[in-house]
């Protein structure tokens, strides 16, 4: 067991130097990187924890949002249903009103068509009646009927109202006026004289009188005194009868 003081001292110095070397080049770097890794892991864990907490918070918020959204949806749906029901009711009411109006319009139109149809039928009937009467009267037209009508004419002239006589007197004032008398058949001299006298008496003047025949009158007379015309024939009577019937219809 030899003991060497130089080796002893140098060994102590060497060991202390080795402690420094290993501390500088091994322990500190390795422990440092381990500490950094642990810090990183801790940070990652902390971040992960924070992310998980945030995720849970977001999840809770999302669930709450979904609940609120569901409630809003139900409220909006109920409101929509109510609005739809209201609109449907108003539309139904409006439609019903329109249907009633349309029904009324159709009823009025049907009524008018019916009246029109009735009027047309009446006019047709009147026209057929007039044509039939015209045809019948044309077959019945004769001097005898004309003589009877002459008598009626004379009665009518004598039975004129004072107002009509006044209108005839005014019409006879027209200068150069001729009284035109149309008849279906030629009048004999006595009837012409009787009629001339009666007209001169009525107008108060001896106006010239022109006699003509007009077969279209069917039977009877037409007297023109200026603007005043006296219809005493079957044609005009039939026209007047048809017009009265139309107005009455």
């Amino acid at each position, binding site marked *: *067991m*030899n*003991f*060497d*003081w*130089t*080796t*002893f*001292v*140098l*060994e*102590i110095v*060497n*060991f*202390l*130097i*080795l*402690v420094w*070397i*290993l*501390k500088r*080049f*091994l*322990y500190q*770097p*390795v*422990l*440092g*990187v*381990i500490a*950094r*890794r642990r810090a*990183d892991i801790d940070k990652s864990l902390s971040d992960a924890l924070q992310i998980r907490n945030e995720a849970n918070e977001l999840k809770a918020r999302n669930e709450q949002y979904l609940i609120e959204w569901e409630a809003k949806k139900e409220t909006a749906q109920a409101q929509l249903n109510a609005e739809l029901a209201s609109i449907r009711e108003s539309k139904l009411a409006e439609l019903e009103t329109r249907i009633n109006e349309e029904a009324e319009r159709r009823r009025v139109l049907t009524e008018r068509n019916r009246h029109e149809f009735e009027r047309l039928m009446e006019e047709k009937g009147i026209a057929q009646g007039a044509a039939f009467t015209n045809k019948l009267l044309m077959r019945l037209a004769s001097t005898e009927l004309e003589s009877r009508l002459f008598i009626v004419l004379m009665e009518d002239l004598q039975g004129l109202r004072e107002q009509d006589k006044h209108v005839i007197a005014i019409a006879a004032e027209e200068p150069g006026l001729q009284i035109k008398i149309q008849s279906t058949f030629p009048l004999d001299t006595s009837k012409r004289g009787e009629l001339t006298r009666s007209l001169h008496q009525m107008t108060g003047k001896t106006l010239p009188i022109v006699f003509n025949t007009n077969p279209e009158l069917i039977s009877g007379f037409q007297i023109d005194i200026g603007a005043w015309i006296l219809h005493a024939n079957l044609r005009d009577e039939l026209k007047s009868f048809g017009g009265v019937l139309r107005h009455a219809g």
Partner: protein
Amino acid sequence: MDIPTVVFYVGPFGITSIVVTTWGIMITLAICCWLGTRRLALVPGKLQTMLEGLVLAIEDNINAVIPDHTQQVLPFIATLWLYIVIANLTGLIPQLHSPTGSFSVTAGLALLVFLSVHWFGIRSGGVRNYLRHYLSPTPLLLPFHLISEVTRTIALAVRLFGNIMSLELVALLVLLVAGLLVPVPLLMLHVIEALVQAYIFGMLALIYVAGAMQSQQESKKGNDI
């Protein structure tokens, strides 16, 4: 075996082969550590994983004994373990001898342990508290404490020196008597013994340091009470 060869002289001081071997170990360790730790990354490679595993294993062992002062004593204890392991295994290399097979070396290491126990003890609780623990539980035990300090230091030095020296001596004797390949199993035993002795030396040093530091804490607690 016990007489180291002087390689060269620096003035009156003869530099022995043991010191030169120690320098070689130091340079090798420094280069390896520098190469291994110059590109450390958060995602470790194989070499970095190995280095981290080594340092963490040492740290865990120290932490199991003295959890409050792990970082404080780690450089000293870890260097003891690493140096003694490598120094013990150096004897397996032909033409080289384990530095720990020299009593001068083991005595130096034991002296360092002896001094570090007081150094860490005083740093932990102050001079007065540290010296007071020699008087606890009763001043009558002071001589025994002092004897214990000396004897355990000597025991440290002699235990390591004796084991390593005897291993090399036995291997040499077997080689001389039996032949070339017969000492190979003995060399395997050398590896195990080198590891065990390094662990024992470092663990004892750790326990001594921890005892000194924790005795201060117990003294503090007793004073507080």
